């Protein structure tokens, strides 16, 4: 590692802390959030819209952590939005919102996604539309994606065991603190911290293993090419 890279990482260290101010700000945020959830529970559409705007990305991350590869994220999120609208009034405690919506998201991701997408795709496949469309879409996606390497890392992260995958993905959203992740998953913050740390190690090991295999495969290919040369 270069000194510059190390220094930039070290630069994350925060300056002098003021725990009291931090605690106050946190309490304020909590009250605001709970207020919005409470209003949404009472049928306030603006509050509901605000809550959805604020939550849809991390709910999306949960759906991604649990859905099958074929399932369409947008379809599933639409179902979560609908369930949220229909059932939020049945929520007992605004503080339970994250855990409640997470359960809904996971249930929908697991139960609905696979069969719906299969049906939609099979209809299109019958008339030979799917390959062309998907190919075009993939090309567009490819252009949008940062790099092949990033994709490889992301796919490896998606292959982590569910208990690790979910907190690792949620932590990638800047807005989600450890406490909020713990709140959503119904786990203590220390467990979340351990899972994220272990999940990252697992990811490192998976990718290192992949690199080794790739290097071995290349070496074999080169060896056989040299061996096979006249």
């Amino acid at each position: 590692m270069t000194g510059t890279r190390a220094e930039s990482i070290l630069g994350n260290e925060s300056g002098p802390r003021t725990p009291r101010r931090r605690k106050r700000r946190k309490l304020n945020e909590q009250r605001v959030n709970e207020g919005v959830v409470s209003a949404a529970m009472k049928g306030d559409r603006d509050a509901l819209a605000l809550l959805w705007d604020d939550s849809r990305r991390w709910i999306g991350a949960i759906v991604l952590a649990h859905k099958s590869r074929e399932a369409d994220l947008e379809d599933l999120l639409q179902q979560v939005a609908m369930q949220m609208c229909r059932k939020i009034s049945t929520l007992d405690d605004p503080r339970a919102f994250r855990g409640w919506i997470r359960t809904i998201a996971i249930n929908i991701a697991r139960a609905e996604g696979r069969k719906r997408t299969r049906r939609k795709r099979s209809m299109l496949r019958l008339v030979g539309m799917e390959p062309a469309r998907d190919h075009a879409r993939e090309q567009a996606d490819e252009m949008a994606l940062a790099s092949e390497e990033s994709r490889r890392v992301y796919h490896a992260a998606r292959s982590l065991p569910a208990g690790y995958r979910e907190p690792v993905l949620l932590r990638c959203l800047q807005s989600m603190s450890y406490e909020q992740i713990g709140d959503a998953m119904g786990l203590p913050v220390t467990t979340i911290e351990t899972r994220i740390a272990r999940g990252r190690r697992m990811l490192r090991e998976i990718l290192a293993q992949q690199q080794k295999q790739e290097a071995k495969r290349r070496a074999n290919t080169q060896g056989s090419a040299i061996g096979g040369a006249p």
Partner: protein
Amino acid sequence: MSADDNINHEARDGMLDELLPDHARDLLISRVIDGRASTSDWDRFRALAANEPEIWCELATTHQQHDSVRDELMNELSVADRVELPGGIIDEEGTRQRMSFVSKWGGWAIAATLIVVWSLGMPTTSHTTQPGFIAGIPGVGLKDAEPEQAFEQYLDAGQRSGQVVAEMPEQVVVETTPLPDGTIEVLYLRQVIERRVIDQAYRMMQDETGNTFPVPVRVERGTYGAF
């Protein structure tokens, strides 16, 4: 350390002491990446790095991987911004009428989970009964054609104009009735997939009691692909 972090410092330090070296190492790396490392965490990290400089490499690799996952995840989650809450803006009479039309005729299509309702209105039956017009495709002379011929002409003309994609290979039997002369009358659906460019699409959703209702789909300019 982030403002939201609520872990007691002593508990955090104690946690590190109790852990096996590998786990403590993972936690330290994780805390540094997330900007949650306390002063004592940094002291431990530096002490560890003095003996095992490779921890810097692990830190850099993990940090880079975290960034990659974050970038890809944010990219994939961008679709979330298109998902709106159902209801409210779609409560128009016109939409309701069109949806009732769809609910009468759209039984098989609902199986595809997605119904597209074009905001310009559904094609009226008068179009199809006018001589010389089939399903809104003008200029096809059918006055003297047999039904099968007419249907083939419609498919050909539609495919040329881009309005017809294809006929579904499978036909759906609706009803079979034995007739007195020993033959069997079969009522069946022939399904044709048509293509249309529309202003506004609606995704059909079902609530827990089975009621179907439309939700507008927000499509940003420049995006491409199936919903």
